[in-house]
């Protein structure tokens, strides 16, 4: 299977000279289209940095990130932004919904930034909100009026509303209780399977990581393990044990 996402020997350093810190060292990874990849590792292992590099929010010191044949590290900032707006859905641990916008406005916001007509945007938003099991009752509420699980589902809806080819989730269950976390992870899994969206999930939870087709483990900025799900587990990987 050809790689949809290719991380070619990426190294990321912060700072200069004696104070330089290397966060990722020579990371190489290839993700086929439609794969659900879990990136696991302890705090400070470089998993969020890796996600930022994939999202084009940051650029590697060495190496490149290629998505759907495009070297996004070589793109100018504006084009990277455009690519992100059209092709990438981002989900954060802290939901990061805009507090002054209603849920509907929050979800609709990327479509508006893309310049889609208002009516079309609204219809699309409602379809997506239904997909993430958020009913009409929440459309006109503000984020602070919703539970954590509902907020994260709204954030997922915002990430999906433009129909991205790549969904990047950074600790999406970190602020949720285990039950709600499972609901959110089920939703991501379902979307991956139904819509064939490539998902990269960053987590420190071994349980969350099992939702992926494949799990890579990062430690001190290096990939120390790369596990694919055996067919008998129904597409989910066996939890990695702490080594």
């Amino acid at each position: 299977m050809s790689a949809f996402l290719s991380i070619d020997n990426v190294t990321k350093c912060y700072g200069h000279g004696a104070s330089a810190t290397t966060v990722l060292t020579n990371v190489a990874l290839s993700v086929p289209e439609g794969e659900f990849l879990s990136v696991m590792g302890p705090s400070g292992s470089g998993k969020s940095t890796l996600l930022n590099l994939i999202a084009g929010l940051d650029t590697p010191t060495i190496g490149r990130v290629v998505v759907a044949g495009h070297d996004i590290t070589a793109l100018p900032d504006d084009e990277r932004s455009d690519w992100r707006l059209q092709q990438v859905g981002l989900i954060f641990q802290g939901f990061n919904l805009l507090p002054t916008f209603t849920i509907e406005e929050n979800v609709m916001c990327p479509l508006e930034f893309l310049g889609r007509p208002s009516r079309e945007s609204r219809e699309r938003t409602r379809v997506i909100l239904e997909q993430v099991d958020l009913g009409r009752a929440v459309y006109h509420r503000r984020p602070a009026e919703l539970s954590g699980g509902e907020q994260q589902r709204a954030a997922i809806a915002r990430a999906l509303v433009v129909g991205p080819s790549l969904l990047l989730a950074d600790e999406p269950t970190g602020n949720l209780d285990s039950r709600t976390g499972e609901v959110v992870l089920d939703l991501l899994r379902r979307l991956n399977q139904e819509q064939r969206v490539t998902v990269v999930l960053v987590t420190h939870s071994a349980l969350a990581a099992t939702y992926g087709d494949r799990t890579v483990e990062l430690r001190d900025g290096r990939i120390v393990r790369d596990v694919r799900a055996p067919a008998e587990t129904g597409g989910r990987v066996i939890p990695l044990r702490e080594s």
Partner: protein
Amino acid sequence: MALTVLAVACGVALVCAIDLVNRAVYASFVEILDIMSGKAALQVTPGEGALLPEALAAEVKETPGVELAVPVVSSWAFLTDGSGEQLTVHGVDITNDDAIRVYEPARQSGLLEDVLAFLNQPDSIILTEAFAARHHLAVEDPLELDTPTGRRRFVVRGLLAPTGIARLQGGGLVVMDIGAAELAFTRPGLANRIDVVVRRDADVGVVRDALIAKLPAGLRVEAPAQRRVDLQKVLRSVQTLLQAVGIFGLFAAFLITFSRLNVVFEARVGQLAVLRSLGVRSRRVWWELVKESALVGAFGIALGIPAGIGLAHLLLPLIATTTAIGAKLAIGEVALSARPESMLLAGGLGLGTVILAALVPARQAARMAVIDTLRNRDVESERPLVPPRATGVILLVAICGVVWHLIAVTALSGLVASALVTITMAVLMRPALDVASPLLRGLGPGIAGATGRYAIGTLLRSPRRTALTIATIGIGFGVVLWLWTLAGSFERSVREVMPGVLRGDLVVGSPNVAAGYIEAPLDDGLLEAVGGIPGVRSVVGEMTADWQYGGGPIALNAFDPSYFSEDTFGGWRFIGRTLPDAGALVARGHGVLVSENFVHNVGLEVGDLLTLDSPSGPLSVRVAGVTADFLSPRGTVLLSRDLYRERWRDPHVTHALVRVDHGVEVPTVRERIARTLGVRYGVRVQRLDELVAWFAEQVRRAFTGLDVLAMLVLLVVLVGVGDTLAAGTLERTRELGVLRALGLRRRRMGRIVLGEALVLGVLGVAAAVVFGLGLGVLWVTTTFPALLGWTLTLHVPLARAAGVALAGIVVCVFAAYLPASRAVRLDPVVALRTE
């Protein structure tokens, strides 16, 4: 807090500068009065501009208790070098050593050794050393001066060291023998005043009463201290107006400080909640916050006072001009000194402003419950700073204040009503914003899509701060618009009224300004000279003078009788009814016309008997009609110049109005007059429209300070809007990071901040237009006539209003530059990590 410090500094600087300049201008006028009166305890005067017989001094001298009675010719002369530099003429009896000593001059050695030679040469003058040095003059050098009787050549016969009267500002003094001074500046035997030195053992009050009883009616006997009181009265209106401007500057600082402290305290409620949970009482927390604010205020004051001294140097010539024009006074050099009382006043008001601005936000922050604190971490407190009931009360009080002003029509009620309207405008901004919120939320995305939605959403997320910023812009530009409306109405009124009073093809007058905007008087021999020039059909003399009536200043405007009785110069524009044959009545000296504001301020109407205390005794005349005139804020009496000359013994004219022969080109006659009289009198010949334009220019000069004020307002608005936007972008760092992560281009981030600035600018300008024009209308129609006396025609300066609107929006956009740059440069990875 840096922006709060800057706002306080701006407000303090403005108050400090205005107070310093006001005091310096007043001190300068007082110094002239004190120096010119010397040791004299009393002065006998016929009133401003009028003359009295010099021989009266002997009668004064005979009064018990009088040690010396010195007749003085006091006038002005002007350099003919084109600079128009004014010199004070002091004509006394040079042969009388006692009289000279009244003014404490220190004679230079060798001066006036030959008094007879001095007296035998009527061109003899004495200058001060300072003036002579400045103009490179020495004894026996000639000096040409413009005098009322024309351009004259004098010879310097002596120099005075800088003591006593020679200390007069810049040494701009000419001392002459009284005989020669009468020839050049009054008429032989006529002086301007008699300075009276009272014996040490005599009571000044008793001597004064004796003089009043003894001298002819119409003459005034005043102590120099009384003249100071009169001066204070004359200056009070202009200085009150200027102080009001300073206070409005401080009010803008209050709004910015209030807004900023509100944000700062809310951002720290978490810390405060910790203190509260440790057991610190809310009152203690409140007090600590107020103390902290006072410290911030102290920094602002420390910056503002030196800035105020600097600003005072910048404003000094402008305010001195405004005061001189407004009060019709001659002003020379004004020395500015850093007076502690001005600094204390500005510092005290600045500190009071900061503490006042801190009270309510500190109270709210100190009393917020811990649970509220946690719940509202990212959102501004929903509670309005001014509860709805209090807002209603403030609105009601403001309405009552305006109604009271409309009924009472006093300066005090006007200032109170204006202050109340300003406070109400600031308080009402929050509910107004709440009402407009749905509309704005709809308009934002409609106009600029998600960018507009986000910009509007951000502003409405902090309605308190947004409302205060809009109020700051509204009040800042509103004040400028209000004062421009006032200035525009004044200028328009002058342009409309002047052609109704001064009529003719040409006007001849002095190119020199004697006091404020009034041209120096010329001897009425000028009229005959002008009348003799070919092409001149008719000449009318006009004289203006300040006088007292009913306990206050008025103006006298005297015209030759034919100006009232004949149609050569066109008819008068009367307002309302007149007495039958009013023109002839005035021409014969049996009646007078009065100005519209005279009727308004004094209360006399057509047909009433008006009694003026002329230097020759009471003069009773009938009010024959009412017309518009702008000479005095309190009112003008227009009378026959024959009557004026006879009763005031004043042979001068301010203008000669000229009508040219039919068929003769006006420019030809103009050129002839200038050529014939230019050398002898140094006159200026203008068309009437040019004179009116010149008067309008004087009005603009009087309001020049407004441009400096406008610049200060721009600075304050820049600070206020910049503050709001900067605070907004700082608070939303994470959100802006989210937007970047979602895929927003950098420039679009900048456009969001610019959008916020535009919304603030448009709403602020809208508030400014409503507030400024509302206050402008109130002031033009009611307050200004009550404060200064002039009755004005409302003129809305539409071009300037458009300029203010544009400037307001441009400044807001400019203020967005730094916050927008920050938003554009934001690193999304760092921003997303921000708590």
